[in-house]
């Protein structure tokens, strides 16, 4: 009798939550909803940083009372190099989504393979960004050289930190998957974060690097 009641209860749950969500009032699991809310707030952060760059990009060394370098940071951009790192980040989005689908099919081996590839591509992108920063600094344009360089380094640096945090999460998940079975939703939530980082770069690459 108790078994019948239990099965009936589960059937009711099926109707209310036919998807993979837990029994929440929103019908979406709490970690996933929390990640979406975080991403919405992160959009505000990056919106502020991009706006700041747009406001200051044409004002190198022109603040009265400050002796900034007259060189604009955009004069030092190496577009072919940055395009290559952009393609690398784009590829990492594909490998991330493949990792999520592998996890949902419970294919743990492929999930680990794609997670590792994503982390590797992310590290390559980050290496490219560090190299780019090094070149700019060697050209004489550091973080405090002028307002346009400060705005640029803050924006792209924040994005780089996001990539670094994403790599840490991917590596941590990879390590955990070697010891225990990983819940597919955990991979999906990290995937959301990773794709958002890619989306932000799509905007930065266009607005900061390509639009004159």
């Amino acid at each position, binding site marked *: 009798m108790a078994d019948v009641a239990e099965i009936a209860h589960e059937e009711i749950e099926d109707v209310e939550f036919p998807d993979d969500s837990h029994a929440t009032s929103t019908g979406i699991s709490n970690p996933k909803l929390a990640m*979406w809310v975080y991403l919405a*707030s992160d*959009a505000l952060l990056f919106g502020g940083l991009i706006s700041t760059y747009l*406001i200051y990009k044409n004002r190198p060394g022109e603040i009265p009372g400050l002796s900034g370098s007259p060189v604009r940071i955009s004069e030092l951009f190496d577009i072919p190099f940055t395009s290559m790192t952009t393609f690398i980040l784009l590829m990492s989005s594909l490998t991330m989504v493949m990792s999520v689908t592998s996890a949902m*099919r419970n294919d743990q081996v492929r999930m680990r393979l794609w997670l590792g590839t994503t982390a590797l591509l992310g590290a390559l992108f980050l290496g490219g960004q560090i190299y780019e920063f090094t070149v700019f600094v060697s050209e004489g344009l550091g973080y405090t050289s002028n307002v346009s360089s400060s705005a640029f380094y803050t924006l792209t640096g924040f994005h780089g930190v996001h990539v670094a945090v994403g790599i840490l999460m991917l590596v941590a998940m990879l390590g955990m998957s070697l010891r225990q*079975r990983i819940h597919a939703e955990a991979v*999906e939530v990290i995937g959301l974060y990773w794709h958002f980082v890619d*989306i932000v770069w799509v905007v930065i690459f266009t607005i900061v690097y390509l*639009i*004159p």
Partner: protein
Amino acid sequence: MNENDTDAGHFGKEDPGSEPEKSSGGESAVAAPPSPVVASSAGDDPDVDGRHMGHLDAGHTHGPTDGQYFTIFWVLFALTALEVSTYFWESWFGEGDAVRRVGVTVLLIIMVIKFFLIAGFFMHLRFDSALVRRVFIFGLIVAMVIYTVAMSAMNIWTDNGNPWFDDPPPPITTTTVPEAN
């Protein structure tokens, strides 16, 4: 049923009616079952019998397939290549205001398309609950409105580099009034 049983049931088991090629080559299909819990519980535990299966599990797909993900990637790749090409447009087509304006317009359109392709398909926003779509789009719209207002307040659209965010004063125009005889 223990904790692991529930987890295994969440995404852990192939649908008995699913196509076999969906899992071919994977650990769950070729080698031993991915976890002993899944193998032992198949068929006799209603909680594991597909009740909480993921929405991309074989037989329950209402998102893109692997092939579609690759297609979207190649579209994104081509769009990015087109974006990068605009950097060379002035050397190909000659410098000019028209080339620059067309380039900027194309760049902004491509940026929006790429944005929604990644958000819609890779982030699964097109196939997910309407609530997450609303949360994300709300954040996006709020960000765009706030920063458009902020940038407008600092004369970003008309200013050409004045450090104090003021437009240059309008040119003084004088009119000569003819003397009356």
